[in-house]
């Protein structure tokens, strides 16, 4: 019976491939909802009773046994994964509409199929504790998302990006395999629980950092991020939303999961996490600012948010090392809540950006403008997401960043002077990240949605269809809810942390809940005060004469939309400040001296990722070495036999010299 429940979704998912296109989407949706029901109900139970023994689900038969385990940590991630996937599934219907003409039914079927499999594999990753099963699920997740990125495979750049993504995921996989094998070599078992034994016998940091590197490639920590800014824009928007919202969080889940078994070296691990995360956050947002591609910009913001989450986790780890339960609670709660928050506002931003792309057929910020007049609801939703991602009150992003902020400020007096200084540096990074995010999103929202159109769109633009707006409104409601009544979301997370890291249960929430009640109340007051002012304003303006006129142009009358401030002009002064870190390539023909009447000129500016350049350099060196080695490959059978002979000879010599 148990095996059947596990097998049913797997078998049912294959029907997507053969069903007629009319009902295929609804079938996939129903299947997704069933899977959500199957996992969300036990997950919910596990989350509200975090101290209960984990809920086990054993499936299998003669061929072996797989155990699915749901403890509070997995449950938390299962719930947010399910919500994001559900929203993505709802959104995909409308988004894929135009593709129904250009794509074959088989391609669309494969896309739906991969989407369901992405959900299945993510849930499996969260619930499997056996090393091999976990790695298989991890691999399935990479492959299914690869298929999803590949949706527009007819574009050469998409194909290249997807392959690049697949390769990088496998580098991560290799690291994880090595880490698990190290554990198995020592303990004889290859699962997460065996790590407990391993960590009690050996120094903790080396194996942890190996796991961290493996998971960091998925999560997108700098310098492991280079796949991310390409893969997100290449994928369709609902896929980018789910990938950025929850799939990269599987890396975070892995890191936290391994951390629950770590027993020493907390200070080193914590410091390393804090430093890497601060750099990730800062560079992520700085690179986001100079992007011209709307979705690429959002992808860099995912990196930034992974940095913020990492800061929270690093802070919690420091708390473990300093035996300070307050830091543990604040750090991990901030980090985990930010995981949840990011899984809300990032899909919202990707979805609304996707609606704009669907209408205007371009993601280039410089070609858009004035979208708000055509798509007021999409613009409002994007603004809400932008405010939330900047961590502004009274929305959800503020709550998680606030938790990390007070954690850092309390940390200033928790350790020794050097740790204080580190905490201060992280605090500075976090404020800078906040300020830069505001800089970036005022730019995006201002340039894309406000002003007037910079180019004439190819077709008539209208508001996104209802099916695409509904999931966005669902997300928006949660965003506001977390901002106004944060405590009902923080308490379960604190429960998870108590259960996982054995902090003093209930010691902290006592002093935390009035803080968040006050923040929530102030949020309500803010809304009420604004409402009142607006009401008075509208009443008064109703009695007055309100004229419409053109924007003031300094007396200049022949202004055109092309004279508006552009994204590039908005970022120029920042780009100059950040010159050492950000490299921008200019592409133009300088005017020659003999040109008396210069002709038309072309000028382009491309932001480049310095880490990409660094990685390319490594790849170039590898290619050079490999090309030299390739000379050995002569295609001559005699040579190959010679190689084998030489190899055996070397082995003999080594054996004789007792080296082997």
């Amino acid at each position, binding site marked *: 019976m148990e095996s059947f429940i596990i097998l049913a979704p797997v078998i049912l998912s294959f029907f997507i491939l053969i069903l007629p296109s009319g009902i295929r989407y609804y079938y996939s949706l129903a299947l997704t909802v069933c899977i959500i029901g199957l996992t969300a109900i036990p997950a919910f139970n596990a989350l509200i009773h975090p101290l209960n023994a984990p809920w086990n689900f054993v499936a299998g038969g003669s061929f072996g046994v797989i155990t699915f385990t749901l403890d509070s940590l997995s449950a938390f991630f299962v719930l947010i994964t399910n919500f994001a996937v559900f929203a993505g599934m709802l959104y995909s219907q409308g988004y894929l509409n135009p593709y129904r003409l250009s794509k074959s039914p088989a391609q669309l079927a494969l896309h739906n199929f991969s989407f369901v499999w992405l959900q299945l594999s993510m849930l499996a990753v969260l619930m499997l504790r056996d090393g091999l099963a976990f790695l298989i699920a991890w691999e399935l997740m990479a492959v299914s998302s690869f298929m999803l990125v590949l949706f527009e495979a007819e574009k050469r750049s998409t194909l290249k990006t997807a392959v690049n993504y697949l390769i990088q995921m496998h580098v991560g996989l290799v690291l994880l395999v090595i880490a698990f094998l190290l554990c198995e070599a020592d303990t004889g078992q290859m699962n997460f629980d065996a790590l407990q034994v391993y960590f009690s016998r050996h120094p903790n940091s080396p194996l942890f950092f190996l796991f961290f590197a493996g998971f960091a490639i998925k999560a997108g920590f700098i310098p492991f991020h280079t796949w991310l800014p390409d893969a997100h824009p290449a994928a369709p928007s609902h896929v980018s939303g789910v990938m950025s919202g929850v799939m990269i969080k599987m890396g975070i889940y892995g890191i936290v999961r391994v951390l629950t078994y770590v027993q020493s070296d907390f200070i080193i691990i914590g410091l390393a996490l804090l430093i890497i995360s601060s750099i990730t956050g800062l560079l992520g947002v700085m690179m986001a600012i100079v992007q011209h591609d709307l979705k690429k910009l959002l992808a860099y913001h995912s990196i930034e948010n992974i940095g913020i989450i990492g800061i929270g986790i690093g802070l919690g780890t420091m708390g473990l090392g300093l035996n300070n339960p307050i830091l543990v609670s604040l750090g991990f709660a901030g980090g985990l809540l930010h995981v949840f928050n990011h899984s809300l506002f990032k899909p919202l931003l990707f979805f609304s950006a996707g609606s704009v792309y669907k209408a205007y057929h371009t993601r280039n910020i410089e070609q858009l403008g004035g979208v708000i007049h055509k798509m007021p609801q999409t613009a409002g939703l994007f603004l809400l997401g932008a405010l939330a991602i900047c961590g502004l009150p009274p929305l959800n992003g503020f709550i998680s960043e606030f938790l990390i902020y007070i954690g850092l*400020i309390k940390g200033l*007096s928790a350790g020794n002077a050097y740790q204080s200084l580190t905490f201060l540096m992280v605090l500075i990074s976090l*404020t800078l990240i906040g300020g830069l995010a505001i800089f970036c999103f005022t730019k995006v929202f201002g340039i894309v949605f406000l002003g007037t159109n910079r180019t004439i769109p190819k077709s008539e633009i209208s508001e996104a269809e209802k099916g695409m707006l509904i999931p966005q409104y669902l997300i928006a409601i949660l965003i506001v809810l977390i901002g106004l009544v944060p405590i009902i979301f923080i308490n379960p997370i604190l429960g998870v942390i108590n259960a996982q890291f054995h902090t003093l249960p209930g010691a902290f929430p006592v002093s935390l809940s*009035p803080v968040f009640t006050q923040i929530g109340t102030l949020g309500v007051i*803010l809304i009420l005060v604004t409402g009142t002012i*607006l009401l008075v304003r509208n009443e008064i303006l109703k009695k007055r004469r309100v004229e419409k006129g053109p*924007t003031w*142009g300094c007396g200049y009358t022949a202004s055109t939309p092309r004279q508006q401030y552009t994204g590039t002009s908005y970022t120029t002064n920042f780009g100059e400040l950040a010159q050492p870190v950000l490299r921008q390539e200019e592409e133009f023909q300088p005017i020659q001296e003999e040109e008396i009447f210069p002709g038309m000129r072309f000028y382009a500016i491309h932001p480049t990722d310095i880490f990409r350049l660094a990685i390319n350099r490594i790849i170039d060196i590898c290619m050079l070495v490999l090309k030299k080695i390739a000379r050995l490959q002569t295609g001559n059978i005699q040579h190959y036999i010679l190689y084998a002979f030489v190899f055996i000879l070397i082995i003999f010599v080594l054996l004789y010299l007792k080296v082997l």
Partner: protein
Amino acid sequence: MGLLLAIITALFFPGVILRMKSIASGRKGPGILQPWKNIWVLLRKSSVISTTTSYIFRLAPSFYLSTILCAGLLLPFPGMSPVFSFEGDFVLFAYLLALGKFLFIVGALDTGSSFEGMGANREALYSMLAEPAFFILFGTLALLTGHTSMAEIFDSFRFAGNHTFIIGFISVYLLIQIAMIENSRMPVDDPKTHLELTMVHEVMILDHSGFDLALIHIGTALKFGLYGGLIANFLLPVNWTFPAHVTFYFFIQILFALLIGFMESFRARKKLAKNPQFIVTLSSIALIAFILVLLITFKMIG
């Protein structure tokens, strides 16, 4: 209470600055309440709204004012508990002001004018650069006093002993400079400049008119009141009686306004390209204060 006093301060603050400037430049100058008379006129005027704008433009000024009002609810006053006070409330204080700024910037961009784009961009850049100084300052105070809410920080700061004098001096200096940047005053921005290309705050409100413009002016005046209130919190001795507090409070505010007027009269604004450098310097000064506190608390030695 803090908010109430800030509102009263806002009533005379811009007027005092103007009067000081006019006296310093040898003119008679307008009355203290002239800026508010102007606002009153604006409130009764009809308005012209650009055809390029959307609902963001109409919402932004109201949001701007209300965020400043709400931030005021967090402002402490010695011997009294503010309406809202909790651990880390200064983070909310800063972020509420940032929310107002975000919407204000976006509102300016809504006009599609290049001038306003320039102003918006500069405002975003400068406030981003100024933010760390504020946070380092409060982090320093939190480390020194062991508290994290503004009311508790100020209460225990006044008792913390003689060495607080130097920290207090640095803090007040920093807060004055941050207030100048946040309110787009002299070394960074000149409110009296007549050239759009070099404006920051003024260019952002070019297209606002009537009621909305009045809301923005009220908000700006209030912001001065808020920062003045913060500065006063450093200087008010805790064991005085309430009337003495209030009197001294207003004395400080007038002094602050006179100081701004005086400084602006004898100081030229910086080149726009030099502004970031100047603002980042504030963070380094705050950093020095932090290391000083680390030394004071004997943590460097231990």
